């Protein structure tokens, strides 16, 4: 009897172990190994500083420092420690993570950091970076040409500091930069640049290794085609739901609508006056009249962005430090049609008669841009200002606003609200800033920006940055419109995607229960 009991016990134990083992296998098998995502920007090349695909960069490369979008704190990534050497923000010391390897098995060292920074073509890095003093395999001093307290923030972005393998870049100039240290490695053999990007999991990743084994990024240009692919379960997630499809996605129980809400909006939309050679550049009353004629609630209704929030007039980031508020401004530019009409009369006197016809650029890349422009045109019509909308595409906009510096009076545009508080907005008013769509070139503004960048003292930066914002606001150079959202959708059951506020979701740890 006793013997039989032992046999039964051992048998039960064995069965339990087999079941447990099966259970373990079942858990792993519950998740799909291959995740497919429909994206709306196409990765065309594999140079982290020269492409425009933060989605891909975040998968393949690691930044030196991580910016936590929820806590808004800097966290260690490939650099485990960072500090300014001396009082001026000109020498940044970095202690690097040991034991990290690139996808090709090469060890990550300080030489790779120096190579990455020295080959970066971006003005934010190139205009400040001077050289690196390598102090050991895992210790380096980054030396800048001029003080820049924001430089640490730049290292949180793979566009500026997505670390490349020096050895493979030098050995293979065409594809060497496709090798990073990130959680996913590029499968170039099966990748079609600009269309389908195939990635394989990096089993030797220094951080948490993703559950999925393969990740495919598919570029699908049209929002409705992306949604069709999602509804047909060809993809597990999609970026950017079309404005007209949002309700359908929300109503579908098989899908989940996602937006950057909770970590702040994604983009800041504005109207900029051409301050270099636009027809309104010398007529402050005209610019102020237009600013007061636009009801941004109408704009939001027209663009159909349910998550959007009207800008309160400040042109700095949504919840950024050093941000001016209504009490800082000397001029009220809020919506008031009567005031706008009164300002138009003053503008006419200033112009010595009739007001000029104004040309407003609309970027044709998205339909909401045209809707926004139509609201501006109608608002101007109400106060007797004639506006002609000129449509052009991305290359045309850049050609007009940056390189040819002219051919328009106003432009409706937007900038992504990136990960650090002052960087992007500063570029809107900097003489050679990439987002300076107003073509503003003001010596006093330049001086204040330089002083603020150089200072590590928050009080000094706060004062200077606010003075810049007040100047820009009161002179109606930029007319802030609204903070817009970027959204996406995924199949119910998909987990692990971070729908980031900068409009570039992170798919690193995407999983899908079968």
């Amino acid at each position, binding site marked *: 009897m006793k013997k039989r009991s032992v046999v039964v016990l051992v048998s039960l134990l064995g069965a339990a172990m087999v079941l447990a083992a099966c259970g373990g296998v079942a858990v792993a098998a519950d998740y799909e190994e291959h995740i497919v995502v429909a994206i709306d920007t196409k990765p065309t090349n594999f140079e982290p500083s020269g492409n425009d695909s933060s989605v891909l960069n975040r998968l393949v490369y690691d930044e030196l420092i991580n910016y936590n979008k929820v806590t808004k704190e800097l966290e260690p990534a490939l650099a485990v420690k960072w500090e300014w050497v001396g009082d001026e923000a000109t020498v940044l010391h970095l202690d690097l993570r040991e034991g990290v390897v690139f996808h090709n098995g090469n060890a990550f060292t300080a030489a790779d950091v120096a190579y990455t920074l020295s080959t970066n073509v971006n003005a934010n890095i190139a205009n400040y970076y001077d050289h690196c003093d390598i102090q050991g395999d895992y210790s380096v001093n980054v030396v800048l040409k001029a003080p820049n307290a924001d430089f640490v923030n730049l290292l949180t972005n793979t566009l500026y500091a997505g670390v490349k393998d020096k050895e493979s870049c030098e050995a293979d100039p065409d594809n060497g930069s496709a090798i990073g240290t990130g959680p996913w490695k590029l499968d170039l053999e099966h990748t*079609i640049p600009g269309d389908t990007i195939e990635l394989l999991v990096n089993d030797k990743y220094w951080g948490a290794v993703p559950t999925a084994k393969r990740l495919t990024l598919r570029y699908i240009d049209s929002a409705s085609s992306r949604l069709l692919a999602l509804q047909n379960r060809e993809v597990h997630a999609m970026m950017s739901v079309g404005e007209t499809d949002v309700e359908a996605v929300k109503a579908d129980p098989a899908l989940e609508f996602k937006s950057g809400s909770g970590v702040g909006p994604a983009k800041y939309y504005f109207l900029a006056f051409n301050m270099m050679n636009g027809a309104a550049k010398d007529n402050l009353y005209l610019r102020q009249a237009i600013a007061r004629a636009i009801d941004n609630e109408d704009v939001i209704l027209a663009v159909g962005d349910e998550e959007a929030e009207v800008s309160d007039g400040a042109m700095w980031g949504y919840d950024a430090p050093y941000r001016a508020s209504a009490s800082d401004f000397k001029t009220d530019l809020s919506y008031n049609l009567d005031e706008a009409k009164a300002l138009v009369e003053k503008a006419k006197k200033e112009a010595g008669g009739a007001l000029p016809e104004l040309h407003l650029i609309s970027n044709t890349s998205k339909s909401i841009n045209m809707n926004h422009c139509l609201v501006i045109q109608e608002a101007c019509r109400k106060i007797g200002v004639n506006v002609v909308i000129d449509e052009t595409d991305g290359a045309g906009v850049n050609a007009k606003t940056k390189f040819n510096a002219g051919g328009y009076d106003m432009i409706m545009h937007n900038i992504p609200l990136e990960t650090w508080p002052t960087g992007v907005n500063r570029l809107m008013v900097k003489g050679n800033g990439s987002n300076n769509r107003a073509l503003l070139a003001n010596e006093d503004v330049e001086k204040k920006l330089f002083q603020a960048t150089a200072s590590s003292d928050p009080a000094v930066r706060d004062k200077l940055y606010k003075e810049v914002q007040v100047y820009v606001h009161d002179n109606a150079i930029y007319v802030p419109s609204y903070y817009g959202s970027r959204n996406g959708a995924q199949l119910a059951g998909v987990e692990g995607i971070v729908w980031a506020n900068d409009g570039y979701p992170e798919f690193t740890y995407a999983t899908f229960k079968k």
Partner: protein
Amino acid sequence: MHRYIIKRVLMLIPIIIGVSFIVFFMMDMAEGNALDLIGLDFSEEKLAELYHQYGYDRSVFYRYLLYIKNLFHGSLGTSIIYKKDVLDLYLQRLPATLKLASASVLVAVVLSIPLGIRAATHHGSLTDNASMVLALVGLSMPNYWLGLMLAVLFAQKLHWLPSSGDLNGIWSLILPAITVGTGLMATMTRTTRSSMLDVIRQDYLRTARAKGVPEKRVINVHALRNALIPIITVVGTEMGKALGGAVVTENVFAWPGVGRLIIEAVNQRDTATVTGCIILTAVMISIVQLIVDILYAFVDPRLRAEYSTGGQRSRRKTGPRAAALGLAGKEGAVA
């Protein structure tokens, strides 16, 4: 025959120069360039270096001459956007385009030839009228509309087929091929019908029938073979067009073909990619046309004889293609 092929190959040189000239200068007329697009955040030094490297600091004529010089050294240039050799880019997209073009033409041929024959042999009947209405509908339906409707029905509603991409083997091909094939089918059905109508009234078919040849054989062998040349011409032309990339359909179905590459490159002012791809497409079309001309010889013994005698008879008139289309002479058919 060889002389004719060599002549056709040599004709590619002016075609390439002409096509590259038109495309290059049209791209230059568009506002902005690829460096404007990618170089927004670049440092001024880097941007100046790139402007110099790609010749944007010189006139468009200088850039074009440089392009032609490189072309005759076998280089189609490097894409500023993709940072890749244009030939590599094209070759990467070509399989998808070849697949779609072949499948579309196959769909069209399989459906249109029986339909065209049936319409011709039942001239004036309900079948004939129905075929022609079908052809008219096929011609009238825009590809983007048909593609979307098919995707909504078979992907969104029925979940039978993928709506986009080329990741599911033959299943991915079905909807784009039907979309492109429907338009082709319409043209081919009409051509087959009219060509067959011409042939079935010929005396030699009456003779064949009088000799007791079964009607099926009269139509499918004697009549069809003689009606094939205009059909082959249309198939060749449509195949050539499809090889240039079914631009609209490729966009609707996010198909990774040459057409989609060209459209994206136009939007990004990627002159090297646009010019290179269009040159290669022109070459592909010329090759298809050459194959079609050679096929004529296999189908029509009269032309085979002309090719073997150096095409003297046809040159005297209007050339082998015109001869193939029956414009160069009416020597009588061989049944």
